[in-house]
C-alpha cells in the first residue's frame, strides 16, 4: 500500500498522457509493465484512480475497488460479446490501477475535425508526431490514413454500439472522443481498420429500453455539439444500429423520440 500522497511505483517512469473530463478522479499513463530479455516490450495504457484525501480512507479504498472491478467486468463482458474494446492487461484494485492494451490510433472526434477536448490539446501534440493535421480537411485524414469514408465510419459506430447494447452493456458516456480508429495487426491476415470503444468508467449493465435510448441520445448530442451538420451522418449510425439490435429497435427508436423531447433526465415531477 502506498501512503497518502505518494504514487504507486509503476507510475514512476510512466508517461502522463492526459486528464480529461474526469481529471478530478483519475489520471492516465503510458507505461511498460516489465522489460523482457528476448522480445520488444509493448506499452500498456494505465488508468489510475488516485487516493482522494477528502474521503475517509476505508470508504475510499472500497469505492475505488468496486469501480475498478465494475469497469474491468464490463470490459470483459464486451470482449466476450465481440464488441471491439481494448483488452485488459493488469488489474490492481488495492492501488486503483487498471491496465489496458495500448491502442495506437486516433479518436473519432479528431478524425471528424472536432479538435481535441480541452486540455488534452497540449498533451496530444506532445505524443503524436502528426500534429499538423489541423491544416488538412478532416475527411482527407480519415480517408488517407484509414482509407474509409465518413459514411463507413458511421456504420462502424452503429455496429459497435449495437453489439454492446445486445450484450446489455450501457456505456454511459458515448462521445466521439471515446471511440478510436486503429489498424489491426494480425499475424497472418491483412491489416484492417477497426473501431474501438474506450473508457467504460461510467458503464453499467441494463436491459432497459430507456437506458439504451438515453445512451444513444447522449451520443447524438455529442455529435451535434462537436460536429456541425452531422445529422445525416448520425442517421447512418442509427440505421446500422437498428439492423444490429433487431426486433428491439422499434421500441428503442420510439423511446429515443421521447428522450429527445424531454432530455436525458426523466422528469421527477408526478
Amino acid at each position, binding site marked *: *500500500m502506498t501512503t497518502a500522497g505518494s504514487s*504507486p*511505483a*509503476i507510475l*514512476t*517512469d510512466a508517461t502522463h498522457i492526459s486528464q480529461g473530463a474526469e481529471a478530478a478522479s483519475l489520471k492516465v499513463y503510458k507505461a511498460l*509493465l*516489465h*522489460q*523482457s*530479455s*528476448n*522480445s520488444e516490450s509493448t506499452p500498456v495504457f494505465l488508468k489510475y484512480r488516485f487516493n482522494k484525501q477528502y474521503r475517509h480512507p476505508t470508504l475510499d479504498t472500497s469505492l475505488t*475497488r468496486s469501480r*475498478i*472491478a465494475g469497469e*474491468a*467486468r464490463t*470490459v*470483459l463482458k464486451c*470482449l*466476450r*460479446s*465481440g464488441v471491439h474494446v481494448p*483488452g*485488459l*492487461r*493488469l*488489474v*490492481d*484494485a*488495492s492501488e486503483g490501477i487498471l*491496465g489496458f*492494451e495500448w491502442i495506437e490510433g486516433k479518436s473519432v472526434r479528431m478524425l471528424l475535425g472536432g479538435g481535441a477536448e480541452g486540455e488534452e490539446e497540449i498533451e496530444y501534440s506532445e505524443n503524436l508526431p502528426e500534429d499538423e493535421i489541423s491544416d488538412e480537411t478532416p475527411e482527407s485524414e480519415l480517408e488517407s490514413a484509414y482509407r474509409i469514408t465518413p459514411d463507413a465510419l458511421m456504420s462502424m459506430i452503429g455496429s459497435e454500439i449495437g*453489439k454492446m447494447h*445486445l*450484450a446489455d452493456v450501457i456505456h454511459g458516456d458515448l462521445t466521439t472522443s471515446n471511440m478510436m480508429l486503429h489498424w489491426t495487426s*494480425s*499475424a*497472418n*491476415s491483412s491489416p484492417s481498420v477497426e473501431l474501438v470503444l474506450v473508457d467504460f468508467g461510467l458503464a453499467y449493465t441494463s436491459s432497459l429500453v430507456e437506458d439504451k435510448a438515453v445512451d444513444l441520445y447522449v451520443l447524438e448530442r455529442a455529435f451535434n455539439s462537436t460536429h456541425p451538420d452531422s445529422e445525416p451522418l448520425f442517421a447512418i449510425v442509427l440505421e446500422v444500429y437498428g439492423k444490429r439490435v433487431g426486433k428491439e429497435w422499434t421500441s428503442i427508436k420510439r423511446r429515443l423520440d421521447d428522450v429527445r423531447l424531454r432530455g436525458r433526465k426523466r422528469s421527477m415531477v408526478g
Partner: protein
Amino acid sequence: MEVISYPYFPAHLSRAYIALYTSVTDAGSLRSRIINAATLASPEGDQERELLNFAFVDPRLITSALHVETAVYQAILAAAQGSLRTKTVHSEVLWALNPGNNISEAIRRYGVSDGCTSLLVIRIDSSELQDVEAKMGSVVSGQLVPLTQLGTLTDWAAVKKYHKLNQEAAIKAASGDIQKEHDVVDNIVVSSVAIKSVMG
C-alpha cells in the same frame, strides 16, 4: 529461456525466468516427484523443494506469451501486496490462469500432468539467482525452445471449453477465420487472467 524484469517490485519478486520445453519425456515422474516433495521431512525435503521451486505449466492451455506473462504479473502483484490466495507465488500463477476459484482444479488443469509432452517452467525470484536454466534443465528432460512457439502448442478446443467461450457472440462472429478466432480467444483469455483478482 526468457528473463523478464519487474523494476517496480521488491527484489525477491523482481525477475521471472520463463522457459518452454518440448519433447518432454519425464512428465509423469516429475509430477510424482513434486507430490512427494511436499510431504518429505526437512532437511531433505527443503532441499528437494528448492530443486523443484518452479511453476510447471501445461502449454496446451496457454494461448500466447502474453497470456503467461499476465498471469505472472498478477501473481507477483498478489505476492507483493500480501494477498496470495495460494501458498506460493508459483502456485498463484496456476491459480491466476484457471477461470474458476478452485485451487486443486487449477493445479490439475494447468499444472504438469502425466501426458504432458511439453512444459512451461517459470521461476519468480531475485536477479541474483544463478544458473536458472541449468536448474530447470536438471528437473525437466526436454528440448528448450523459444516462447514464440507457445501458440503452436495450444489446444484451442480445451481453452474454449474451460473459459466457456463456445456460446459467446465474439467467437461465433469470428468462426470460419481460424487466425481471427485465435486472436479473439487470446484477447479474452488474457483479459480474464488480468481481471481474476476482482472476479466473483
